[in-house]
């Protein structure tokens, strides 16, 4: 196997490209796109994938809303966002293509490879629709290539629906000058559990696609890659979370299925037992949270993973863990809200409920993962914080991270990530289960089985010995100590570091999965002559030191978030009633800085281009003329 790319004539060198593959669901466009990404990653390209998911399990075939597939952004450098719109799209029928076009997902002048068999389809309506769409595409300047995929595939298989995707993969590998041997190996891997004949047939289809591109298309790109010198893992955010759970030394993941969190537990259900963990699928989210609490209380640290609606249901349980000072990691893979909302779509709408949810004073740590790699390490960090501070750590991810694939350096496992054996040593005489340190609020945790440590953990107000206590003083003391733990933790945090410019016109602050898109947007705006900084927060509660100071160096500050904020220019909106984005609220309250908000709730990852436009709108006019081209 050689990973070197065979240089080909006339290959246009690109720094980045966005490639979509879309089909009816069940036609395998997802597998095609993901394989394309995997091969590119193997060659050393930076990649980021975005799933294209239809709303229903089985939407009607050839429908606008039925587009199913995959977006791959392929780049020379490491990337963290799927970018803006597609530069090239492979579509298995004109309707799914139309869906993408209408949704604004095709970049102007986008290259389109479209299955051409519909042109001559038996049903004249279909043929007419095909004609209409292709006419529109040509008229609007898209670079259309009609590809007789079906016809070509039928030379190798009887049912073209089961093969087209590998043919398309071949096309893409040809167009992007990927290594054919690597591609063949990838195909063999995909079908590794299938019989040899089937594998061979799919490799044939791959080769055929490659050859067809070679012979018929005048498209040759190359996105230069740096062949990796160290091993990388390529997973999506949910698998990264699951691997993080396994590597973190946690033993229990208690969950109830919910999109988009569930796929993390799919992988865990298969693998966790091998390292001594269990996945408990509970009867509901409330039970899942309490099962995790029980497992944690018993001396391990457990995680419960869910999405918005499940997170809302766990509020009471979270308060109990805070009150009992039981370490607990809660992962919320956010989706479009409110209520059932948009289960398969992405949003960052749960931050404020993560920070302020649960009645009474229930201080907890809230953090967010910003890319796939971060999903892995954040779980490990979350468990460490949970056990050090005997508290709840809420880790926020979202649907876009859940399904995005990204290569990152293979983690070097550390023994100290794994849990120590359950402490069963005797408790010294006179020690109390809530012997709060006066300054930090911290206390040693007692674990069932430890001789001398018997006490009754309770969600009621209690004193240091965990005895129910309704006195005014002890209630204040206890609440104070639980609150202090956040301050104590906050003091362990490293000050934030501003990226881009350290002072100037605008500071852009974000959190979670928008990191890559914000970075790119900021770089583009800076290239236009503005001085713009960016700050991406890992901890949302407590906030790391240095944020206030960082803001002071800029004329304006804006939070860019994938959640709702009222537009300042909406007729009814004024400073007395404008609702801000979640992080903006937190920063305004803490630093008393007039932090502006920009966000979208389109169910899609924020695109760098959209952010760029929002930033430009917030920048002074003076440089407006300098900018323009990109």
């Amino acid at each position, binding site marked *: *196997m*050689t990973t070197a790319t065979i240089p080909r004539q006339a290959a246009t060198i690109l720094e980045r490209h966005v490639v979509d593959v879309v089909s009816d669901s069940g036609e395998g466009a997802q597998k095609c796109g993901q394989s394309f990404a*995997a091969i590119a990653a*193997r060659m050393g390209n930076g990649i980021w994938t975005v799933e294209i998911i239809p709303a229903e399990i089985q939407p009607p075939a050839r429908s606008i809303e039925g587009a199913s597939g995959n977006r791959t952004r392929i780049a020379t450098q490491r990337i963290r966002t799927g970018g803006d719109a597609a530069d090239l799209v492979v579509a298995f029928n004109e309707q799914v293509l139309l869906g993408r076009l209408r949704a604004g997902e095709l970049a102007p002048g986008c290259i389109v490879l479209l299955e051409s068999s519909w042109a001559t389809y038996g049903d004249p309506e279909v043929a007419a629709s095909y004609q209409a769409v292709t006419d529109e595409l040509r008229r609007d300047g898209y670079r259309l290539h009609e590809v007789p995929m079906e016809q070509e595939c039928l030379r190798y298989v009887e049912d073209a629906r089961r093969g087209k995707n590998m043919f398309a993969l071949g096309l893409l590998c040809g167009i992007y000058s990927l290594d054919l041997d690597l591609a063949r190996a990838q195909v063999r*891997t995909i079908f*590794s559990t299938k019989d040899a004949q089937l594998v061979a047939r799919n490799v044939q289809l791959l080769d055929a696609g490659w050859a067809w591109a070679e012979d018929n298309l005048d498209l040759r790109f190359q996105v230069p890659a740096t062949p*990796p*010198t*160290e*091993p*990388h893992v390529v997973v999506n955010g949910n*698998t990264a979370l699951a*691997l993080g759970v*396994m590597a973190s030394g946690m033993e229990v993941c*208690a969950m109830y299925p919910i999109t988009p969190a569930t796929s993390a537990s799919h992988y865990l259900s298969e*693998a966790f*037992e*091998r*390292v*001594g963990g*269990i996945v*408990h699928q*509970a*009867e*509901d989210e*409330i*039970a*899942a*949270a*309490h*099962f995790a*609490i*029980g*497992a*944690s*209380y*018993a*001396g*391990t640290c*457990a995680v419960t993973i869910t999405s918005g609606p499940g997170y809302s249901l766990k509020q009471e349980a979270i308060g*109990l863990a805070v009150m*009992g000072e039981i370490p607990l990691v809660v992962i919320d893979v956010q989706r479009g809200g409110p209520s059932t909302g948009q289960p398969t779509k992405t949003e960052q709408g749960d931050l404020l409920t993560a920070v302020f949810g649960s009645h009474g004073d229930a201080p907890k740590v809230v953090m967010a993962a910003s890319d796939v790699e971060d999903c892995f390490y954040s779980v490990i960090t979350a468990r460490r914080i949970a056990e050090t501070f005997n508290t709840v750590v809420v880790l926020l991810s979202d649907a876009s991270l859940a399904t995005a694939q990204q*290569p990152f350096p*293979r983690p070097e*496992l550390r*023994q100290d990530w*794994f849990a120590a*054996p*359950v402490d069963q040593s005797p408790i010294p005489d006179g020690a109390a289960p809530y012997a709060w340190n006066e300054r930090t609020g911290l206390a040693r945790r007692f674990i*069932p*089985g430890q*001789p001398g*440590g*018997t*006490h*009754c*953990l*309770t*969600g*009621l107000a209690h004193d240091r010995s965990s005895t129910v206590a309704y006195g005014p003083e002890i209630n204040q003391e206890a609440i104070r100590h639980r609150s202090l733990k956040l301050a104590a933790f906050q003091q362990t945090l490293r000050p934030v570091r501003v990226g881009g410019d350290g002072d100037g016109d605008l500071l852009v602050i974000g959190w979670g999965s928008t990191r890559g898109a914000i970075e790119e947007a900021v770089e583009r705006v800076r290239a236009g002559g503005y001085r713009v900084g960016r700050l991406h927060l890992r901890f949302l509660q407590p906030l790391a030191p240095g944020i206030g100071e960082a803001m002071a160096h800029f004329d304006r500050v804006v939070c860019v978030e994938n959640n709702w904020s009222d537009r300042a220019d909406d007729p009814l909106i004024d400073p007395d009633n404008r609702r801000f984005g979640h992080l903006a609220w937190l920063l305004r309250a803490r630093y008393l800085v007039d932090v502006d908000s920009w966000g979208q709730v389109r169910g899609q990852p924020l695109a760098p281009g959209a952010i760029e436009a929002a930033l430009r709108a917030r920048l002074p006019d003076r440089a407006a003329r300098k900018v323009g081209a990109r």
Partner: protein
Amino acid sequence: MTTTLNERLRVPVEDRPLDFYQCAISRWCTGCGDNAIMTAVQRLCRDEHLPPERVVSVSGIGCSSRLPHYLNSYGFHGLHGRALPVAEGIKSRRPDLHVFVITGDGDCCSIGAAHWLHAFRYNPDLTVLLHDNGTYGLTKHQTSPTTPLGVRTNTAPTGAAMEPLDPLSVALGATNASFVAQAVDWLPEVLSQILSLAFHHRGFAFVRILQRCPEFLPGLFDPWINDPARIRLVTHDDALTPSAGLARSFPNREVHDPSDLDRARRIAADRELLPVGLLYRDAEVPTYEDLHPVLRLPSERLQERMEDELDRFTIWPDGQRLAQGGD
């Protein structure tokens, strides 16, 4: 002196006083049946020589759920209705601990009903005591699912209008139910024997205990206390074996094979005679712990296996690990 099954099966007991298992003065009302149940639990702990630190009593919220505060053991006094999932979580990782669940009729049969139904199915190795006083005690006398028809409460000032939920029938309808028994707080011998049977059952041992609440429902169980003939004493050589003295005062005794589910259901459904004893037991239902055994690997082994997992997703630089292939 009562004779528990345990005492008959085991070597003579070490003479720990009962109050060794008490860590605080209980705060239940005078005459509250919770006191009697607490004593029975202490007796069980003593008779089984349970080291306090290996016992965890888990409860929800309610008068009854205060028990863990008084028992000298680890206690977990959690949220209303949620004792069962907490106990399941504890037991799943710590099968070495003896876990008791203390719950009330509101806690278990109302807000906790989904967990209750599913706990039967999971069949974790827990000993579950449902203190059924037919009311919400702690919140001061509202209707509970088991409040008898016509009984007045603060939320049913003209009397409960609905048939009370029958915890035994529900339990016997639950899939995988492996141990269902009924006791009453005023018959300590029976209560102790049944708790012992429950303790020794591997699986989810559910015991409903009729518990007196003199504060809000004085006299509720008087018909049965005053007239033992209204009780069906359910006995079996391999289950409840009342002393001769005790048996004599119960004219209505039935020898019942606890593996006979049909009969158990009919006994439970009978509104004439209140059943006391073991209604159903199936020792063969796999426990949750059987299905998900604890495996704690030495950390090197753990690391090895984790590396294997990472391998599944790893792309190796040119040449490295090429042989392995299984990427």
